[in-house]
C-alpha cells in the first residue's frame, strides 16, 4: 500500500569507538548517527540533507547493512511483517538485499575497472541465485534498455564510458533485481550539470514506472527539494527538522534549516535574499556540544538550548522540528 511505512528506524545509532594508547582504551565515540527515528514510506522519496560529516551517508550505509548499527533498531516490512535487520538469518539478509539497493556517489569508483559491464551487471543476478544464463541475459537486456544504453556496450569496460553513462549502468545494476527501496547517496553530485538533469529525470521516470521508494541523500538542497516528497535535515548525527518538501522550503522552522536554505545560491537574478550567514564550522562529532547540537552557531540561542537537548516533535501537519524556540 502506498503511504505505509516500508522501513522503520527507531533511535538508530552508529557510533565508532575512538581508541587511544597501546591497550586500545576507548576514550570516546564518533557519533556519526546519533539516535534517528523516522519511517520511510512506500513509494515516497525521502530526502536527507546536511553538510559533510552530518552522518547522512552513514545513515544510508546502515540501511544498506554496510554499517552495523550500535543502538536502536531498523526494521523492514518483509512480506507483510516488520523484521528487525539485526535478527535476519543469512538467506533472509540476501532477500533483504534484493529488496533494498543503492546508487553510489561516484560512478567512476562504483564499477570495478577490471570487469566488463556484462560481468558487473551479471554478478548480482548470480548472487540472487538465478542459475540459467538465458534468464539472466533476458534481465540484463531489459535493464540496459531501461537506462537507454545500447546492448553492445555490455562488452566494454567502465573506463570507456562517460560519467553519465556509468551512472546509468549503476542504476541498471541497482534496479535489475527489482528492489522496492533504492538508497541514492549523492547520486548526481559527481556529474556535470548538463548530465545531472538526465539522471534526475531518469530516476523520477523509473520511480513512477516501478513504484520505487527512494532515500535520496545529498548535500545540494535544490536537488533534494526538487526530488523529494519529504525532507529530513540532519545536523551532527541528528534529524533537526523533518517535513513535507514544500512546507520545508516555504516555512523552514529550525534555525539551521533556515540558514541552510538561505546559503544556497540561486541561478536567478534579483532574488538575492537576506543571508543568514552561519558563524564557525560544524563541531566535531566526537565531543558534541551539550544541549542542542546547533546552539554554538545559532543566532537565536537561549539559555535552555545550552543544557537541554530538544526532542524532534510534531509541530502540526507532520512538520517535525527539534528546537526549543518552537515550544
Amino acid at each position, binding site marked *: 500500500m502506498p503511504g505505509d511505512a516500508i522501513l522503520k528506524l527507531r533511535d538508530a545509532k552508529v557510533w565508532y569507538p575512538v581508541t587511544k594508547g597501546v591497550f586500545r582504551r576507548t576514550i570516546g565515540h564518533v557519533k556519526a548517527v546519533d539516535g534517528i527515528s523516522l519511517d520511510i514510506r512506500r513509494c515516497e522519496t525521502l530526502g536527507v540533507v546536511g553538510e*559533510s560529516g552530518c552522518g547522512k551517508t552513514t545513515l544510508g550505509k546502515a540501511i544498506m547493512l554496510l554499517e552495523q548499527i550500535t543502538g536502536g533498531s531498523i526494521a523492514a516490512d518483509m512480506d507483510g511483517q516488520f523484521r528487525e535487520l539485526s535478527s535476519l538469518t543469512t538467506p533472509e539478509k540476501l532477500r533483504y538485499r534484493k529488496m533494498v539497493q543503492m546508487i553510489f556517489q561516484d560512478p567512476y569508483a562504483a564499477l570495478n575497472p577490471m570487469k566488463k559491464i556484462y560481468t558487473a551487471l551479471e554478478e548480482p543476478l548470480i548472487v540472487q541465485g538465478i542459475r540459467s544464463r538465458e534468464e539472466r541475459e533476458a534481465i540484463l537486456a531489459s535493464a540496459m534498455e531501461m537506462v537507454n544504453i545500447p546492448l553492445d556496450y555490455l562488452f566494454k569496460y567502465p573506463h570507456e564510458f562517460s560519467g553519465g553513462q556509468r551512472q546509468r549502468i549503476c542504476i541498471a545494476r541497482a534496479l535489475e533485481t527489482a528492489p522496492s527501496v533504492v538508497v541514492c547517496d549523492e547520486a548526481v553530485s559527481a556529474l556535470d550539470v548538463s548530465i545531472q538533469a538526465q539522471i534526475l529525470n531518469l530516476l523520477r521516470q523509473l520511480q513512477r514506472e516501478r513504484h520505487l521508494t527512494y532515500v535520496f541523500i545529498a548535500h545540494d538542497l535544490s536537488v533534494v527539494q526538487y526530488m523529494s516528497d519529504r525532507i529530513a535535515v540532519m545536523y551532527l548525527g541528528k534529524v533537526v527538522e523533518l517535513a513535507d518538501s514544500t512546507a520545508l522550503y516555504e516555512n523552514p522552522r529550525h534555525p539551521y534549516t533556515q540558514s541552510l536554505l538561505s546559503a544556497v545560491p540561486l541561478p536567478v537574478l534579483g532574488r538575492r535574499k537576506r543571508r543568514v550567514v552561519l558563524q564557525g564550522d560544524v563541531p566535531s562529532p566526537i565531543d558534541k556540544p551539550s544541549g542542542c547540537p546547533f546552539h554554538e552557531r545559532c543566532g537565536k540561542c537561549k539559555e535552555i538550548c545550552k543544557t537541554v537537548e530538544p526532542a524532534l516533535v510534531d509541530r502540526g501537519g507532520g512538520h517535525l522540528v527539534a528546537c526549543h524556540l518552537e515550544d
Partner: protein
Amino acid sequence: MSDEIILDVKNLSTVITTDRVPVRIVKDVSFQLRRGRTLAIVGESGCGKSVTMQSVVKLVSRNYHITADHVLYRSFRSGAPKEYRLDKLAPYGRVMRSLRGPEISMVFQDPMMSLNPVYKIGDQVIEGLLQHNPGMKKREAWARALEMLKKLGIPAAEQRINEYPHQMSGGMKQRIVIAIAMICDPQIIIADEPTTALDVTIQSQIMELMKQLQTEDRKSIILITHNMGLVAEMADDVAVMYMGRVVEAGPIQAIFENPLHPYTQGLLKSVPVLGMARDKPLIAIPGSTPNPADLTEGCEFAGRCPYCEAACLRGVIPSFEAEPGHQVRCLRSAHGEVN
C-alpha cells in the same frame, strides 16, 4: 572609472600534446576583465576553463603550446597604468614571476591540496611577501600576515597562525589559501572553483568574504565555476565556455535574462532551482560532452543541439554581437531568429 580594462585577452589558443597527439583545448578565447569587477567563466569539466586561466598566467607544463593575438595586463598600481604583454613573456622569467603574486594571484579548488602539510600557516602566508619584497624582516612579514588573517575574519588569528593545516577545517583552510593569495595585495584574483569542495554554509561565508574584499579594495576577480547560482550572486560579466570555446559572453543581465546560445539556455534550464515545482520536469541537455580529440569541424555543440542544421557542421562558427556587449557563437543569432 569602473570600465578600465585590467586584463584583455584576445584569441588565446592552447594546444596540449599528449602521446604525440596535439589536441586544441582552448580555441580563440577572448575576454576582458574590468577593474573592480567580477568575470565569471562558466563551463563543465573539460571545457577548458582552467586551462585558459593557466595559459594566461603561464602556469603550464612543457607540452602546452600557447598562442594569442595579445594578452594584455594593465597595472594601475602607481600613477600611470603600466602595460605588460603576458603572451610575450617567458613563462618562468623574472618579469612573469614578479607579476604572479603581487599583481595576479590564484585560489585553487581544493584547499587541502593547496597547503603544504609540513609548514605552519604563518610561514606559508609570508612566503610570498618575503619572495617579492627582498630585505623584508620576517617579523614584519609575520605582522602583515596576522593582519591579513584578522581581516579575513579568522577567529583567534594569533593562535591560528602558529598552527598546521591539518588542525583546521576545510572552510578555514580555504580562508588561509585566500590569505596567501591576498598577502601581496594583487590586482586580480583568479579563483578556480574556490568553493566546490566546501559545504554550502561555508561557501556562502567565503563568497561574502570575496565580495567584501572586492568592494573595499577594488580587486578584480575571475571566478571559474560550473555553478550558475554562484554566477548570479557574484558576477558582473559572464563568459560561457564549451569545448574550449567561449560560446556566449556578456553582462550578467544579458546572459540570465536573454540567453541566446542553446548551451547556455540548457545550462540554465537543466538545474533544479530551490522552490521549483516538483511536477515540472527538468529540461536536460541530451548526450554527453564529446572527447576534445574527436571534434572535427563546425559547432562544438552541434551533436547535442536541438536546433542543429547543416550549416552548423561546417567551418568555424563566428561570433555575433546580439546586443551591445553580448556575443554569441551561434548561427541562429546570425539569422535573427532568436528564442
